[in-house]
Structure formats: structure tokens, C-alpha cells
């Protein structure tokens, strides 16, 4: 092993012929060693579609959260947003890998993340909206993680054991995400006149995209998700002494591939390296 350069030593091959670190070992697959078989009776196209939608939500949300690096209001918050993004990126990788297996066309997580165009993404539009104020970031995270936690809780009983296991892990993580956003909503909403004004504005900006989230997936994660989400949001707003926004739902559906103009530039950045050099490994 050569210790004079960290990257050389990481990439160096061992005497057994395998690379020393994770590179080239085949261990990058998040579902490495998990039985990919589908249970009989499982509707494979429906499973693929559901994993793709939930994976795309997480991938795009993670990218927006990563954009906060070096821009968050304080260091602790920057670390928090990066950690939440990392959890979501992990969920995205598992879900896209499972979507690829259910699809059965030989596409893995990288093919799905890097080589699809915006109209083929199935994420809700809420997650692709540009970052704004920090309060808007927390308002979006509150809506997104409240819904996702409720949806994942129901998916822990899914017919597909891999999706059920991904959801069970996700529930643990999303509980922290939702509580983080809820605590900020209360702190800002029940804070100074300025913080209250900005928290209200942030909620007003994202609220029109809540309906899409609740209607998304056609009830496949349980018809009662909407009621539970609204109850939880009301509990947070009450604690923050904030009124529920009255904004009308924004027409359109990211689940049907109808996206805002903001998704394409986000993907262009996310996909640029993989598309410039498809053979690149990192």
C-alpha cells in the first residue's frame, strides 16, 4: 500500500486482486445480496411505478437540500440539512434499485437517476421548487416529511418485502426529519414578528402543492393518509399559532410527468458528470 497519496492508497488493488476500498468491489449496489425475486401475485409494473415515484421524490428533495451547503443560516443547521438530504439520498438509491428490479429491463439506480429526462421523472412538484427563504425550506420539509412518514408507515406492510423493509428503515429517519421541520415551524411561527411573517409566507408558497402529494399514488398507500397528514399539520400550526394557509391547489401533476420549469436545470446539474463521462466511477 502506498501511503503518500490518499486517493492512490484508496484505489490500490489488494494482493487478492480486489480493490482495497469500495471501488470496483461491486458493493456499491445498495441492494447487494438482497434476494431480487418478486413474490408471486405482486403486480410488478405497479411496484416499479411506486418505487420510482417515491425514489424520485427523495432524489430531487435531497438535491435541493444539498444546495443549502454553505448557505444555511447557521453551521448546525447546515449539518442538519445535509444529514436529512443524505438519508433521503439513501432512500432514493434503495427505491430506484428496487424499481429497476421490478421493471426488469436491466436498468439500475444509476440508469434511472442519471439517464432519464425530466418528463420521465415521477416526483411531486413540491420537491423541485427552487430553494427560497429558510422558512420556506422548513415549510416544504414539514409537508413532505409529514406525508412521507405517514405513507412509509403504511408501506411497512407492503406485499413486497424489499419495499416494506426500505419503508421500515425510512420511518425511523423520517420521524427525525418531520420533528425537525415541525420544531422550526413552531420556533419561527411563534417567534418574532419578522420570523412569523416569513414562516407564514413560506407555508403560503408550498401549500398549493400539498394536494398533489395527498392525491399522488392513487390511494395505493392508503386512503386515510390525507386525513392523518392534515391532522398532524394542524397540530403543528396550532402549536406555532399560525393559521392554515388558504391558497388554492396548483393544477398539474409531477406524478404524470408534468413538471415545473425548475426540474430540468436541477437534473442537468445532477446528471452532468454521469452524462459527460458515462464510464466514470466515484
Amino acid at each position, binding site marked *: 500500500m502506498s501511503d503518500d497519496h490518499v486517493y492512490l492508497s484508496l484505489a490500490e488493488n489488494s494482493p*487478492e486482486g480486489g480493490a482495497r476500498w*469500495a471501488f470496483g468491489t461491486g*458493493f456499491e449496489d445498495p441492494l447487494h445480496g438482497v434476494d431480487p425475486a418478486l413474490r408471486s401475485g405482486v403486480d410488478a409494473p405497479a411496484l416499479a411505478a411506486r418505487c420510482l415515484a417515491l425514489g424520485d421524490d427523495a432524489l430531487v428533495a435531497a438535491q435541493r437540500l444539498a444546495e443549502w451547503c454553505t448557505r444555511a443560516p447557521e453551521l448546525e443547521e447546515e449539518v442538519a440539512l445535509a444529514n436529512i438530504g443524505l438519508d433521503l439520498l439513501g432512500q432514493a438509491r434503495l427505491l430506484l434499485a428496487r424499481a429497476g428490479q421490478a421493471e426488469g429491463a436491466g436498468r439500475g439506480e444509476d440508469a434511472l437517476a442519471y439517464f432519464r429526462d425530466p418528463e420521465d421523472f415521477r416526483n411531486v412538484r413540491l420537491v423541485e421548487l427552487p430553494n427560497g427563504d429558510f422558512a420556506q425550506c422548513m415549510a416544504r420539509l414539514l409537508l413532505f416529511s409529514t406525508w412521507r*412518514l405517514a405513507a412509509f*408507515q403504511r408501506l411497512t406492510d407492503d406485499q413486497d418485502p424489499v419495499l416494506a423493509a426500505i419503508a421500515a428503515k*425510512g420511518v425511523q429517519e423520517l420521524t427525525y426529519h418531520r420533528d425537525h421541520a415541525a420544531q422550526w415551524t413552531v420556533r419561527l411561527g411563534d417567534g418574532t414578528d419578522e420570523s412569523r411573517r416569513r414562516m407564514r409566507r413560506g407555508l403560503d408558497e408550498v401549500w398549493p402543492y400539498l394536494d398533489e402529494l395527498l392525491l399522488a399514488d392513487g390511494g395505493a398507500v392508503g386512503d386515510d393518509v390525507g386525513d392523518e397528514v392534515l391532522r398532524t399539520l394542524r397540530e403543528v400550526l396550532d402549536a406555532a399559532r399560525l393559521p392554515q394557509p388558504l391558497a388554492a391547489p396548483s393544477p398539474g401533476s409531477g406524478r404524470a410527468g408534468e413538471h415545473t420549469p425548475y426540474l430540468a436545470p436541477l437534473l442537468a446539474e445532477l446528471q452532468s458528470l454521469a452524462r459527460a463521462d458515462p464510464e466514470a466511477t466515484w
Partner: protein
Amino acid sequence: MVTDLHRTPTVERAREVAEAVTDPELPMLTLADLGVLREVTVGADGAVTAGITPTYSGCPALAEMRAALDAGLRAAGFTEVRIRTVLDPPWSTDWITPEGRRKLIEHGIAPPGSAPRRASGPVPLTLSPTRAPVACPHCGSADTEEISRFSATACTALRRCRACREPFDQVKEL
């Protein structure tokens, strides 16, 4: 468990090697201390299968743990090695062993309390930042406060001791 039915010196050796592999982010802990090593079996053909479970979905250490397990078992003379990812049931900090907790404190990291019990129904909101008291790993004082639930790694929260004024990480309950 299959392991118990086939306890041979070979299985013992494979288990010993696998258990000694360390976590790249918390290198004072072995995979056994952390509770992520779920199975070590040796088949009739001499192939070793080791199963590990991710702590967090996005934990970047997992790929390195797999590679280290693979390399460790091969270095110990096992030529056929399979590493499985075990997703179910999800890892909980309750699986960190007493020895693992002792090592965490020794290295200035507070161990987690009991993981929240999940009753059926919606997960209740936690709107206040304070939780069960956490003792400072430096001076032992129980007078500590949470600064952020998110810290340098996915699995830790950042706290500060009001007695000795030192900040410290805590492995947060999961």
C-alpha cells in the same frame, strides 16, 4: 439459527474474524459492538456468508463495511465469501452491545438511550427539543443540553455539557 446447528471451528473462526471488523466512522466499535452483523454461516462447500444491516439508508460506511468484511474473511483463508445485505428487521440502536456503549463513552461519545417503542398508529410529534437526560461522557454530569439532533455523522446528535462546558456527540436513538 443455521449458525447454531453448524457450530464448527470454521464457523467460529469466520465469526471471530467478521466480528472484529470495525466501523469506519466510529472506529472504536466493531461490527459486533454496533449490532450490524446479523449472521455468519459456513456452507457445506466451505463458502462463508456474512449478513450485515445498514444503520441509516444513506450511511456511506456500509459499502466500506462490506468491503472490509470481504477482505478480512479472505485474508483469514476463506476463499468463497458472500456478503448479504439484511434489510429486515431494521437496525435499532438498542442492538449496540454493552461493550459498544462502554467504548463510546471511553471515546467521548454518549451512547443512545432506549429506542422509541413504536405503537401502532401515527408516530406522535415531538415538538420540544428536550428528551431523556443524557450524561456527559467527559465529566459525567447529567446537566447537558441538545444543540442539534443532527451532527457530524448520520447517527449522532450534538449536545453540550452545562457543567464542564464541553460539546459532545451522542448516538441518537433509532
